[in-house]
């Protein structure tokens, strides 16, 4: 029965045929048998066998063995706690030891009710304590950052968090200190735990030791609902659960999509949700009133005004999009102005090309690559954080991560993945052209990614073009500018357009962005309040669910009402709108088929090859001494993050990254104070030497770049 690849393992008397080398925990699970674990978590690398929860009896071995560190071998006979008294005794012993110093404060612990330690204690543990001495006590809870608190008394030292920090996010910030019974989890040098991925440890923790401060005392498991949706903070589109209690989002959890996020989230996606309750959230429409300034108006009045402005523009309407609208919202807006006002002009914050459709891959394919070519000079983690974790995983598995398609490693490699992280990629056209030049089309395991700045730029572009084939006419004046969403409202180019427009309608969530320059402000909604679809950077269509109701009508509802006033028929709900556009963009897929864990379907009419013209590299420095300034938009920025107090510590440091060569040539070391100068303006920053950065650039978060542009002189301050 057993083939060379399949082996027979007997677990509790049941024969299991499974691939050789499968972990014993998974092998048992395939037969419906649970082997309880705490420290075991395959995503964290090699098992460590630390907690001793998974002790089982293996025939031929005198001692109990940890199932997590064993793999299926032919003829192996395993007895779990179900059939082995010795194993049951071992697991019971482990739980007794774990509980010896545990405070048993479940009634006030946020983990209570969804705690693996509680669950396994009920199933495998002792019902009574035999421990009558003083338990180890520690100061608690300790905020290891503004977003995460640590309770060392509840900690069972499974080392999941430190392994995450060491082997997944590779920041090395979480460590164990001291030895034996006094071992504690801590951050290196007691600095706050900082970085794009820290929050994942709150989900990895199998007890109530590492908890999100935002969720502290907020809800109990029996009064919450976890709504499956997709994160709208960046173009990755991580799958998430929004934990909702009484109409409020209380926390965001990961919802493992193995091809997209592997169950990891970035802190922006995890902790950014409190922007829903920002103090300056707009809940009612606002209208500019002559001599009286701005005042809240009813929705009827607002729609009257919007209709008036649309008609008064006489077809000279421009829509500035954010790229964070759902496909359905973008389609609805397009239909409103293209069919209702005869205007076809839209402005997207970035270029989006469909040239990459021939090189589509799931993100998980990066981990299987032999060579990953990272192009563009912006940090991957700042644009699309989870992509950075995939690249790190590839490197740990032995892949070469290089900065040029001409690198020797690329030649002869079978699986090459290109990643474009930065501006100048023409929406993916350039990286597609490179993929074409390297002959990656149709090669298994090969592909290319472009990291856009907007979460749904592609979907918005799809929707806009699905509505009409008419080309925009050149208009010398703008009658009405419709600014859709917060990113557009915060964009300087859009503000400049507004100066030229006769009137402006802004759809925004926040007073801070909308106040003062619009004739009419309509309350915007968040991705957490919307039903609809997004297309992520893989080209994957995904389903957003409304997790909580918005404070007023949704965009789809009022656009539909406005459209009706202009004689345009438009459904007010996402499934119907999707049905209307799906045939044009998504092969007639129905809304229900998009799926909770959406597959990567690709585009029906995706071109097999790209014929994009080669694009020249940016011109080199003219004076030969300066470094090209790369001013990137940091992950922890934007309208939502600015409204989350506990994320402010994550804002980028006032520092400039330099390559080792450039730093050496200027006598600069990490920590030095340096001056960056260009065209008469200068900025003083702290230097950080980054060995992985390519030469000739100076990388700065845009909020610290001041008035710098182009090429900068970098000098060390005395």
């Amino acid at each position: 029965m057993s083939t060379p690849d399949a082996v027979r393992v007997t677990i509790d008397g049941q024969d299991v045929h499974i691939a050789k080398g499968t972990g014993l925990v998974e092998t048992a699970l395939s037969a419906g048998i649970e082997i309880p674990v705490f420290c075991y978590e395959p995503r964290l690398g090699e098992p460590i066998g630390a907690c001793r929860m998974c002790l089982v009896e293996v025939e031929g071995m005198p001692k109990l063995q940890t199932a997590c560190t064993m793999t299926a071998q032919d003829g192996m006979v395993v007895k779990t706690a179900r059939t082995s008294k010795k194993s049951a005794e071992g697991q019971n012993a482990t739980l007794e030891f774990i509980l010896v110093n545990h405070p048993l404060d479940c009634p006030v612990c946020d983990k209570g009710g969804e705690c693996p330690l509680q669950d396994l204690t009920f199933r495998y543990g002792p019902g009574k304590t035999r421990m009558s001495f003083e338990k180890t006590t520690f100061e608690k809870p300790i905020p290891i950052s503004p977003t995460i608190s640590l309770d060392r008394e509840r900690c069972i030292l499974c080392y999941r968090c430190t392994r995450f920090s060491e082997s997944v996010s590779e920041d090395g910030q979480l460590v164990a200190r001291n030895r034996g019974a006094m071992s504690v989890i801590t951050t290196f040098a007691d600095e706050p735990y900082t970085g794009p991925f820290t929050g994942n440890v709150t989900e990895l923790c199998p007890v109530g030791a590492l908890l999100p401060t935002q969720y502290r005392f907020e809800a109990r498991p029996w009064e919450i609902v976890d709504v499956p949706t997709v994160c709208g903070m960046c173009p990755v589109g991580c799958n998430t659960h929004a934990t909702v209690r009484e109409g409020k989002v209380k926390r965001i959890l990961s919802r493992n999509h193995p091809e997209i996020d592997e169950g990891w989230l970035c802190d922006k996606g995890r902790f950014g949700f409190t922007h829903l309750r920002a103090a300056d959230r707009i809940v009612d429409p606002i209208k500019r009133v002559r001599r009286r300034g701005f005042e809240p108006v009813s929705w009827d009045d607002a729609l009257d005004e919007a209709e008036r402005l649309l008609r008064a523009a006489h077809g000279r309407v421009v829509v500035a999009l954010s790229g964070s609208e759902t496909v359905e919202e973008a389609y609805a807006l397009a239909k409103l102005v293209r069919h209702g006002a005869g205007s076809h002009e839209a402005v997207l914050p970035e270029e989006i090309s469909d040239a990459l459709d021939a090189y589509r891959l799931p993100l998980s394919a990066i981990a299987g690559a032999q060579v990953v070519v990272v192009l563009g000079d912006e940090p991957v983690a700042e644009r699309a954080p989870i992509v950075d974790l995939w690249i790190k995983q590839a490197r740990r598995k032995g892949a070469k991560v290089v900065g040029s398609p001409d690198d020797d490693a690329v030649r002869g490699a079978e699986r090459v993945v290109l990643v474009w992280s930065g501006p100048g990629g023409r929406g993916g056209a350039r990286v597609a052209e490179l993929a074409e030049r390297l002959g990656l089309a149709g090669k298994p395991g090969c592909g290319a990614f472009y990291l856009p700045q907007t979460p749904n730029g592609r979907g918005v572009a799809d929707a806009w073009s699905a509505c009409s084939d008419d080309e925009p006419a050149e208009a010398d004046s703008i009658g009405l500018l419709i600014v859709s969403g917060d990113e557009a409202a915060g964009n300087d180019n859009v503000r400049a357009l507004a100066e030229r427009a006769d009137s402006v309608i802004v759809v925004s969530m926040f007073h801070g962005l909308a106040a003062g320059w619009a004739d009419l402000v309509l309350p915007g909604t968040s991705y957490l309040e919307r039903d609809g679809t997004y297309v992520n950077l893989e080209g994957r269509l995904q389903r957003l669910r409304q997790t909580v109701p918005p404070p007023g009508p949704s965009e789809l509802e009022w656009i539909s009402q406005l459209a009706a006033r202009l004689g345009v028929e438009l459904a007010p709900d996402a499934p119907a709108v999707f049905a209307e556009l799906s045939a044009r963009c998504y092969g007639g897929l129905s809304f229900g088929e998009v799926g909770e864990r959406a597959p990567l379907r690709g585009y029906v009419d995706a071109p097999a090859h790209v014929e994009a013209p080669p694009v020249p590299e940016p011109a080199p420095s003219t004076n030969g001494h300066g470094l090209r300034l790369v001013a990137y938009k940091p992950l922890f920025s934007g309208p939502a993050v600015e409204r989350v107090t506990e994320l402010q510590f994550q804002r980028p440091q006032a520092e400039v990254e330099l390559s080792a060569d450039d730093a050496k040539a200027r006598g600069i070391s990490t920590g030095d104070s340096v001056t960056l100068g260009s065209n008469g303006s200068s900025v003083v920053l702290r230097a950080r030497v980054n060995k992985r950065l390519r030469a000739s650039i100076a990388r700065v978060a845009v909020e610290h770049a001041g008035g710098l542009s182009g090429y900068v002189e970098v000098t060390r301050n005395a």
Partner: protein
Amino acid sequence: METRIGAEPPVVILDGALEEPLRDLDSYRAVGGYAQLERARAMTPQQVTEALIQSNLRGRGGAFFPTGRKASFIPTPDKVAKPIYLTVNADESEPGTFKDREIMLRVPHRLIEGCLIAAHAIQSKHVFIYIRGEYSTEYEVLGAALAEVRAAGLLADVELTIHRGAGAYICGEETALLESLEGKRGQPRSKPPFPAIEGLYDSPTLINNVETITNVPKVLELGPEEYAQIGAPPDSTGTRVFCLSGNVVRPGAYEAPHGITVRHLIEDLGGGIADGRQLKAVMVGGSSFPVMTADQIDMRLDVDSLAQKGLFIGSGVITAIDDRTCIVQFALRIAQFYMHESCGKCTPCRVGTRWLVQLVRSFEEGSASEEDFDLLLDVCDRIIGKCLCVLGDSAAMPVASCVTKFRDEFRAHLEHGGCPFGEDSSLAHLFAPSDQHHHNPVAQEAPV
């Protein structure tokens, strides 16, 4: 204070160094040093391994695993695209053990010669000696010997690195040693994979104790057949440098063949129990193992004889415990040591060692109850065989043996409401003084 050196012939490990240490290259060469290296290098690696297998030399670090067989597990360089490492465990930290220290001080070149022969046997080009951090003189002596060897060109294409530990007992556990050598937190790894396949830097690694490796030149010099006749063949061949301490007249490091009795070591070589006291128990093998009672001292020190009584030869420790010693205090001190040295990685050891200390202390204070005997033994039982490495067992086994073998003495503490052994710590003459010695005498003078 100089350690006393003695021997019961035949002398193998300390041969030529009983009177004066053989520290410099010339004096070592004068007794035939490095001749075996030359011979070994003329042999094939397989022939050297075969000789080790024939000699039945076994590991002196405590586990007594056949050295030749362990070497034969190392894949040959044509089978793996990784370097092959030899790592010598000189992190001697077991309470009562001081043999590796004497070996490094007296025959450093014999250790280095053994390293180079063993490296040849497994075709390793890089040898690491991981030496206990507190061994500063030993580090200097070994370093000076290495400098001579390097200058004399004896290393050939082999690199030998001496690395100092940083004071953790657990780093004497082979996989924790490898972690520490790699610059990581010193915690044991789960096995398999075994170091022979994935050891240092995930590469095949042979790990041997100092004393084991020092035997290697002698195996070749005497010939494996003759070596295998020494001691208590077939299983316990060769000699040991026994570490005799405790309350004996002449404590010291004594090289003697396997099979010598405990009585012979204590009474004849060690001059018996000092101050006319009575022997109460013997710590045999090290603090990690069950204690031997005074009536068992005619037992031969070979692995088979000891195993019949549930005892272990360990790292050759013989610590005589006389009748002044409170066994409860002794057990508490052992438990404290392991609580202090537990690395904290696995649950039963990290939690169990602390619980053991609390339990034994409650006996010492006289606050325990009769039911606590069962609890204490059950906690030991729940540690033994369930930990990631043997450190947990090392705490539980001796404590459990003290309880079962000296139950009356434990009970006396309960009856007296405290320790009946008077005001001073009864461990003062047994172990080096330490503020960790724990003692709760009863208020009134009690009969001993």
